[in-house]
């Protein structure tokens, strides 16, 4: 392992190069400067995480030593056309679609159907016109810098979707945020920053996808802030389908108002290295968070999910249901941390993590943690790590289905229970297809027949 000063250097270097570049190309964005300053200060004081930090104990960061990630300068991908991203489109494309290429809004690829009154769509770098005041004020309102990458995102935010729904507004159909990354000669890093604000009683569905075009290497370092007002409802469907050589880090931070409902489905399928942090803070009574996720770690893939669910007020409910599928030398890390504060009586929380191991050489580190300070709560957790059930396999094969296909169907079934929590049928279908194609190209293991 390299020394602290040396490791710290990588992140500092990313910051230095990023700031240099920004000074050249960024428009004067006064309203963002406080956030950037806070980020810069954060990077300066925070070390690159290492294994001594509990939350990063199982997360290997060696890739930072191997690549010098360059800030992405707009380049050939400006010329990207709709036909180039055909394969990435959902079969039933949402009427509102914000497309970002290598971290920057590509207006030519967006779809902006007229939406209901009270729906404001904007973008951080101003590509959709002046950013309204209510969005400016909300930016960085809930983001915490729990690690240096979050601070780095604040310091170097490239671009991102800013979505605001006024009180009581119900949006029909989903808004899609589609990230497309094109591998460049030098691996690049971008820092997407999204903000979703639903005022009281508003309701929306958001699809957020991170895709790779081709199989280039790059690093996506995203931060997403979600703020839900009282009685609002957000269906948030996220799919990480990055290229096989990409690194993907997403820090999702959610603040829930009273009686709000937040439903998250996360399908983390791609990338060589993937980490999803999800922090949900209950800020008002009677709110519900349903978090479902699927992590795929094929041969040499690393897939990490960290949950930090904070029950700070009484009468809130959370469900955390995460599943892992591992093959070859794949690794899954699941860290599900739920804190129930002393005042958070009548909290109802159920955390589960089930992992399906297709090969003995795969590895899973699962750590459910319930930290409970209140005395009148209903909380439980369970984790399992298992192989495919031989009875199930035999049942399928006894009907004539060949062994490989039977395995595939069972994996698919295991994942389907997660995908079925997605509201969007098109996304569900895509998740299923992606999983199938990725499982099919898996390296065959020392098969036990």
């Amino acid at each position, binding site marked *: 392992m390299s020394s602290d000063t040396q490791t710290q250097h990588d992140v500092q270097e990313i910051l230095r190069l990023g700031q240099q570049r920004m000074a050249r190309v960024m428009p004067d964005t006064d309203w963002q400067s406080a956030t950037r300053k806070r980020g810069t200060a954060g990077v300066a004081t925070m070390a690159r995480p290492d294994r001594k930090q509990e939350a990063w104990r199982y997360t290997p960061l060696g890739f930072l030593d191997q690549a010098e990630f360059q800030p992405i300068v707009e380049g050939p991908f400006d010329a990207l056309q709709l036909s180039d991203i055909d394969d990435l489109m959902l079969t039933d494309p949402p009427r509102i679609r914000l497309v970002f290429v290598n971290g920057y809004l590509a207006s030519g690829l967006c779809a902006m159907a007229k939406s209901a009154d009270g729906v404001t769509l904007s973008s951080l770098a101003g590509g959709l016109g002046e950013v309204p005041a209510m969005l400016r004020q909300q930016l960085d309102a809930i983001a915490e810098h729990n690690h240096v990458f979050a601070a780095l995102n604040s310091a170097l935010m490239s671009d991102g979707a800013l979505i605001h729904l006024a009180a009581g507004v119900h949006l029909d159909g989903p808004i899609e945020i589609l990230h497309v990354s094109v591998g460049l000669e030098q691996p690049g890093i971008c820092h997407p920053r999204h903000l979703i604000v639903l005022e009281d009683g508003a309701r929306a569905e958001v699809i957020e996808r991170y895709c790779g075009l081709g199989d280039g290497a790059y690093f996506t370092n995203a931060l997403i802030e979600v703020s839900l007002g009282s009685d609002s409802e957000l269906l948030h469907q996220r799919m990480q389908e990055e290229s096989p050589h990409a690194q993907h880090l997403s820090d999702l931070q959610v603040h829930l108002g009273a009686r709000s409902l937040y439903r998250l489905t996360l399908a983390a399928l791609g990338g060589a290295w993937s980490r999803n942090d999800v922090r949900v803070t209950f800020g008002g009574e009677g709110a519900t968070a349903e978090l479902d996720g699927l992590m795929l770690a094929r041969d040499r893939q690393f897939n990490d999910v960290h949950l930090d669910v904070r029950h700070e007020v009484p009468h809130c409910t959370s469900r955390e249901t995460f599943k892992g599928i591992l093959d070859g030398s794949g690794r899954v890390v699941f860290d599900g941390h739920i804190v129930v504060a002393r005042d958070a009586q009548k909290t109802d929380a159920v955390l589960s993590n089930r992992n399906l191991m297709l090969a003995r050489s795969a590895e899973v580190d699962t750590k459910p943690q319930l930290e409970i300070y209140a005395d009148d709560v209903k909380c439980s957790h369970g984790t399992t790590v298992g192989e495919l059930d031989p009875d199930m396999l035999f049942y399928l094969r*006894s009907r*004539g289905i060949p062994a490989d296909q039977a395995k595939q169907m069972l994996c698919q079934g295991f994942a389907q229970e997660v995908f079925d929590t997605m509201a969007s049928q098109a996304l569900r279908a895509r998740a299923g297809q992606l999983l199938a194609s990725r499982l099919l190209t898996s390296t065959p293991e020392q098969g036990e027949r």
Partner: protein
Amino acid sequence: MMLSIKNLKAQVEGKEIIKGLDLQVGPGEVHAIMGPNGSGKSTLAHILAGRDGYDVTDGEILFEGRSLIGLAPEERASRGIFLAFQYPVELPGVNNTHFLKEALNAQRKARGEPELDSVAFLKLIREKLAMVSMSPELLKRPVNAGFSGGEKKRNEILQMALLEPRLAILDETDSGLDIDALKTVSDGVNALRSPDRSVILVTHYQRLLDYIQPDFVHVLAGGRIVRSGDKGLAKELEAKGYGWLSGQDEAA
């Protein structure tokens, strides 16, 4: 012979369960196998279907003249062997329609027949569904997941009706069925009967044999067929139990 088993001996985890079993099933015949709990009936059924974990130590199993030993379960299925499970397995997340279609097409493919497209398949499955009086709702659900005991058994018969096996082995498909369901299941089996298809019925109850008339009845005890006869044997068993047979078994 459709199926010819000679002096079959098989172990599970080092324990001998099948201890020199002989059974001959001709085409078009229906054979009932009865016998005490734990005597090896399901074990025999699983061995025929090709389940892992059974060690055949002696004897032979010929299906239509070819040995089954060492064949993968899916190959046996494609050759026409079907096992209706005593305890059908639940497959969470695997849609029933999808499962049925994949099964049928996998078998057709293995036999070199063209696969059915969705439209043709749906038409076919609707016919079969009506035949076993099963609710179409059950097609939309994951295979057997949360099905009642009777629904699971009907789903087995639906699969049999769809796959049209040459040798159907029904392991206690009648257990836990209400009278109407028993009738439906029996109708399903009788509809399948033909001069070139055979059926092995594993059952504890004479009642099923009123609906499906067997050509032969066998008693399996202690890992062997200890008595064979016609359907009169089933009546005798109903009256006397198995005690009088096991005594004879000891003496043999």
